[in-house]
């Protein structure tokens, strides 16, 4: 039985009042006594619950109708995302005045209607139960006292009035557009020097910025037009995970890397790094280079290119020839032949592009410099847009160290912090935390409980991004506005910029002509009323589209000698000849940790390790075997007396002898969901800076010790990372692709069906038998486009009210993800061995001895296949799951009695059971984000993907009222909507011209486990590998 969720579905129309169910408790008590004395206790409980009559609910109308909204109808407001500094344009669905779901803004050229996983989850931050609701003042005994907003502003004003403005410092995030101008204005009006504004983001892209300065004379985080390339070589740049714009690069990557069936061609992507993150997992070849060896690899590559005459500017090229280190193979761990092969590939390709790293070890500036030189010499500068992302003014950790020195010299009196938790994100060796204790007055403007606010003397809580006004201009000319989509949840919070305006006006009369930040922005852009409304509706001013920009051919190189002087190769690796190193890397979904306060993000299975709720020490399985480590063993990592303890996870995407830990976890104070989850490696890392001032992300000289403790199991959703002969991850190769035939595949499927229904009347049982319908919903997933980012998972969770279950339940394997992205590894050898015939699959069992690590990866988004002949339907004793006439496999929650027969009979493992009332995990006010169009399931109910039936029904009703059919593209399920790579197509196959009908004509069409005769509604387009590339690499190795 589905229990009523009062907080969600019976919400008064004002969206605030909640009524509780008034069950007559006395009677229940009586029954309990009866029950204890009788064996019929279960039966009694049943009859009790069946006869329990619900009490009438209240119906609370508005006091006054808001003119612009109608309850029950979703409205979309354009604003800007805060999941990372990339500032994508988003649309927020507001239903009954409450934000419910986030989608990308289709008008915004950066996001084009898509978001990443982080963008989906910022709605949880808005409703986080651990937001700071009132300003706080630290008392003499160190405890906080809550004060109201007016007295907080007054206190700040007094402090700023008496302080020497030269000694006032401001920490901000990456501020752009008119927001940047505002902070500069504020500083100048109070007399704070401009350099006292420190822009702190955990990832400053400083090495790349410095390298562009060295090579092209201009500091920039360039836009790399990877969509224009046909060969992409990345030196550890994770542009799909945490680059300057994940969504933009995901879209371009899919465009560059997906196969063109007509030309039988596909972009080649080669990834050079000791570890593979999401970006690396998408590579066609992964070149495992020793940590610290990347720079030597790059120098060798440059020299070989010049030597073999593969470069365009030969005269300039000659000047870079002197750099050829001996013993390349020994220093980089890569066979020298690989470099020859790379040179050959570059020579053969028309549009090669080398992607320099955003950060890395202490040589990363030099590495980026060499990458840019290679790009210049190859003539790839037309794909490098120096008018790039506006990250160029970010402070580096070295700048923070300078700030800490100033604090020690008592040059800082007041510090205003309006950035994401610097105490957490700044490495401990810098000593920022200690320095905060020395500053006489620290003000934190955090909207959420965090570590920094604990050190503050005054906390003035900010609005959340979705309650704010503002703007962002991440690429010059591409302005995205922020507007509030809900009135502030807590009356004693205030937008920081508004506080600053008020303070500035009090400190210096008439400092600002305006009284609010909204007016400031509007005045700065000089909008008329009409234009302002139009711009807000659209989401911004988009005078630049990244699709249309390209690097000018006139980019000139700085003098070669000057560049040569700038390249330095540090040798910290040689001190640790065994090459073992710890890599610290930013995690895709947590970014620098700011997303950790969303429980759904906590339960997000990491794109590379598949781990939720905690981080672990990643080890190659072979290294683990050598060291006697097993999954879930807890180890202790010591560096210089500092220790962290964490479990071990084996992972194929990491080179032998290398370890890795993700960033963004180990919060000491970031709300109930993040605090104490995992560890923060920034606490133990030693001091080491790159030339640009960025810290090194690779460390040597640590100690790993087994503690003897073990976790019961790791909270992961991965069983085995290999296919083990099953036919789930479907792939083909470029050489086989022309031989494939869609019609043949359909015939094969028909054969299977005929075998299953030998009497020949199989058509009668399934398709169209019940009731003819003009719709038949089908989905096509292009595995070649899918980059495995799992944004679909979280979009689905938010759209369909999926609960989070907690770490304990994940360990029991009870996670709830209607769409999960499965990831399968196999070896190049397996791929090549099965090339005979066109029906090769990862069937063959790999030989155990001398096997190379599997390096081929296929991501498979796995959701309910909506089988035409669904095995779950046959076994349900109560008809809770059955087929609808439009081809869906319906799951009726109120009919479900929880036998779980269906889940056991489902070959795809896509049915999820509510073992508990998981929705009760969701505290107030986090439950406000639930979708009122979908039932909240309670204990004992099976659930699964419904193809977003609520969206289908909504469109169907509209179409019926207007007397037409549903148009193609009118129904888009949440997963297809969010996919930044556009891998999912959904639609009606009875419409010949629909996108899905066209996609089903692809040669690569296939079905997962089709031999079972379920005839899934979801067709997968096989991933295409470039076997020619693999052959070359594998052959030469022998």
């Amino acid at each position, binding site marked *: 039985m*589905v229990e009523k969720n009062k907080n969600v579905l019976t919400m008064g129309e004002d969206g605030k009042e909640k009524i509780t169910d008034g069950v007559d408790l006395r009677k229940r008590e009586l029954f309990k006594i009866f029950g204890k004395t009788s064996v019929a206790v279960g039966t*009694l409980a049943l009859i009790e619950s069946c006869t329990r009559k*619900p009490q009438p609910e209240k*119906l609370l109308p508005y006091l006054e*109708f808001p003119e612009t909204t109608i*309850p029950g109808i979703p409205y979309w407001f354009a604003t800007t995302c805060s999941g990372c500094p990339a500032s994508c344009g988003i649309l927020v669905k507001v239903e009954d005045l409450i934000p419910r779901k986030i989608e990308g803004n289709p008008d915004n050229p950066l996001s084009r209607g898509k978001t990443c996983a982080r963008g989906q989850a910022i709605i949880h931050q808005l409703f986080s139960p651990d937001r700071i609701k009132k300003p706080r003042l630290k008392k003499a005994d160190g405890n906080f006292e809550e004060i109201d907003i007016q007295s907080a502003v007054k206190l700040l004003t007094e402090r700023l009035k008496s302080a020497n403005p030269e000694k006032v410092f401001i920490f901000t995030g990456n501020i752009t557009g008119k927001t940047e101008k505002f902070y500069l204005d504020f500083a100048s009006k109070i007399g704070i020097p401009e350099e006292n504004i420190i822009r702190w983001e955990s990832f400053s892209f400083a090495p790349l910025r410095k390298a562009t300065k060295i090579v092209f004379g201009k500091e920039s985080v360039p836009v790399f037009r990877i969509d224009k390339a046909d060969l992409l070589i990345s030196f550890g740049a994770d542009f799909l995970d945490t680059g300057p714009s994940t969504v933009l690069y995901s879209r371009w990557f899919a465009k560059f890397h997906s196969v063109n069936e007509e030309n039988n061609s596909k972009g080649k992507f080669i990834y050079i790094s000791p570890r593979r993150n999401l970006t690396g997992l998408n590579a066609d070849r992964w070149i495992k280079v020793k940590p610290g060896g990347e720079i030597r690899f790059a120098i060798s590559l440059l020299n070989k290119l010049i030597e073999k005459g593969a470069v365009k500017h030969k005269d300039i090229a000659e000047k870079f020839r002197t750099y050829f280190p001996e013993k390349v193979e020994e220093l980089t761990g890569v066979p020298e032949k690989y470099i020859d092969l790379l040179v050959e590939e570059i020579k053969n390709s028309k549009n090669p592009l080398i992607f320099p790293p955003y950060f890395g070890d202490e040589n990363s500036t030099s590495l980026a410099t060499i990458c840019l030189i290679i790009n210049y010499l190859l003539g790839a500068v037309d794909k490098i847009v120096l008018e790039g992302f506006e990250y160029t003014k970010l402070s580096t950790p070295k700048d923070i160290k300078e700030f800490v020195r100033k604090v020690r010299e008592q040059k800082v009196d007041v510090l205003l912090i309006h950035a994401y938790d610097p105490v957490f994100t700044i490495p401990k060796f810098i000593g920022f935390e200690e320095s905060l204790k020395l500053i006489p007055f620290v003000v934190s403007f955090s909207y959420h409980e965090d570590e920094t606010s604990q050190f503050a003397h005054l906390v003035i809580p900010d609005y959340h991004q979705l309650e704010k006004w503002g703007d962002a201009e991440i690429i010059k000319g591409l302005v995205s506005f922020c507007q509030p989509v809900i009135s502030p949840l807590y009356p004693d919070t205030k937008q920081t910029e508004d506080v600053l305006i008020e303070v500035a006006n009090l400190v210096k009369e008439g400092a600002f002509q305006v009284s609010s930040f909204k007016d400031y922005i509007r005045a700065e852009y000089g909008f008329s009323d009409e234009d302002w409304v139009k711009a807000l509706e659209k989401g911004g001013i988009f005078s630049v589209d990244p699709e249309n920009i390209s690097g000018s051919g006139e980019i000139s190189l700085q003098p070669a000698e000057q560049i040569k002087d700038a390249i330095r190769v540090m040798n910290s690796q040689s001190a640790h000849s065994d090459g073992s190193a710890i890599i610290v890397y930013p995690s895709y979904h947590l970014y620098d940790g700011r997303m950790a306060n969303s429980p759904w993000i906590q339960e997000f299975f990491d794109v590379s390790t598949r781990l939720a709720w905690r981080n672990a020490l990643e080890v190659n399985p072979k290294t683990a075997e050598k060291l006697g480590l097993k999954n879930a063993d807890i180890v202790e990592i010591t560096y210089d007396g500092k220790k962290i303890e964490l479990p071990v996870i084996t992972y194929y995407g990491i080179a032998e002898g290398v370890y890795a830990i993700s960033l963004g976890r180990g919060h000491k104070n970031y709300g109930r969901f993040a605090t104490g989850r995992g560890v923060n490696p920034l606490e133990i890392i030693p001091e080491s800076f790159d030339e640009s001032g960025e810290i090194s992300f690779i460390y040597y000289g640590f100690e790993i010790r087994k503690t003897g403790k073990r976790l019961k199991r790791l909270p992961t959703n991965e069983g085995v990372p290999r296919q083990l002969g099953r036919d789930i991850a479907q792939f083909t190769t470029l050489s086989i692709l022309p031989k494939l035939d869609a019609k043949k595949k359909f015939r094969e499927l028909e054969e299977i069906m005929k075998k299953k229904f030998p009497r020949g009347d199989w058509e009668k049982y399934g398709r169209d038998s019940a009731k003819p319908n003009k719709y038949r919903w089908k989905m096509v997933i292009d595995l070649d486009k899918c980059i495995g980012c799992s944004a679909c998972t979280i979009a689905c969770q938010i759209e369909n009210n999926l609960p989070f279950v907690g770490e304990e339940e994940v360990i029991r394997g009870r996670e709830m993800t209607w769409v999960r992205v499965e990831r399968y590894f196999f070896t190049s050898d397996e791929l090549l061995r099965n090339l005979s015939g066109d029906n090769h699959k990862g069937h063959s069992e790999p030989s155990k001895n001398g096997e190379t690590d599997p390096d081929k990866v296929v991501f498979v988004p796995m959701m309910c296949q909506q089988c035409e002949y669904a095995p779950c339907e046959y076994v349900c004793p109560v008809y809770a799951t059955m087929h609808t*006439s439009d081809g869906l496999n319906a799951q009726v929650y109120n009919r479900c009695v929880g036998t779980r027969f269906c889940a056991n009979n489902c070959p795809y493992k896509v049915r999820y059971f509510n073992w508990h009332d998981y929705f009760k995990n969701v505290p107030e006010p986090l439950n406000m984000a639930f979708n009122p169009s979908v039932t909240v399931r309670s204990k004992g109910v099976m659930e699964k993907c419904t193809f977003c039936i609520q969206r289908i029904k909504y469109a169907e*009703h509209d179409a019926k009222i207007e007397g037409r059919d549903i148009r193609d593209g009118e129904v888009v399920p949440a997963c297809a909507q969010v996919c930044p790579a556009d891998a999912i197509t959904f639609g009606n196959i009875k419409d010949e011209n629909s996108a899905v009908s066209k996609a089903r004509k692809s040669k690569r069409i296939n079905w997962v486990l089709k031999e079972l005769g379920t005839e899934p509604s979801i067709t997968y387009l096989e991933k295409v590998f470039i076997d020619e590339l693999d052959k070359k690499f594998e052959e030469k190795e022998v």
Partner: protein
Amino acid sequence: MREKQNIIAHKILAVFSFTLFVLAGIIYAADKDNAKARDIKKVKEKEFDFWKAVFREIPFPEKPPQPIKFPHNKHIALGIDCKFCHYYAEKSKYAGVPSVSVCLGCHRYVASVMNSPEVQKIFKYAEEGKPIPWVKVHDLPDFVRFTHKIHVNRGIDCKECHGDVAQMDTAQRVAPLTMGWCLDCHRKKNASTECFACHY
């Protein structure tokens, strides 16, 4: 011998528990019904039906007491259309309950009933800035996704589910709002009878 005794003991226990369970069910349902009868004026006195109680044929009061004794009949007699107050019915899944401001929109100027104690209540709610806590008369379970929009736009008259409101003072439920009742109509009008039509 021991086994036999055991079996007998089990049998006695089973019979005892079954009697207990039937008795309990009857007592419980009857008591609940009586309690309800005390405060609700029934349209039609019904015989208590155990099975109907079990299968929720009698969900909850058909005419619950409301905070304001709103006379639908008087308003309709004045020629006010349903959609004048419930004005989302055509556009949204909710029909909408009018806000206090809508009530005041007229009642501020209607001098004839200005002093009636019930009308005075509206002014009181408006003054206090509180919504009127109406009691839901037509309440579907939360696993039903009912939409007014499609029903009203496809020509279903309000009367078909809500009864002849013109004859009622405060709203009164006339339809049982059970699934069988929904399906009867869906079959008659050739609407979808698939589970996914309402349950998702």
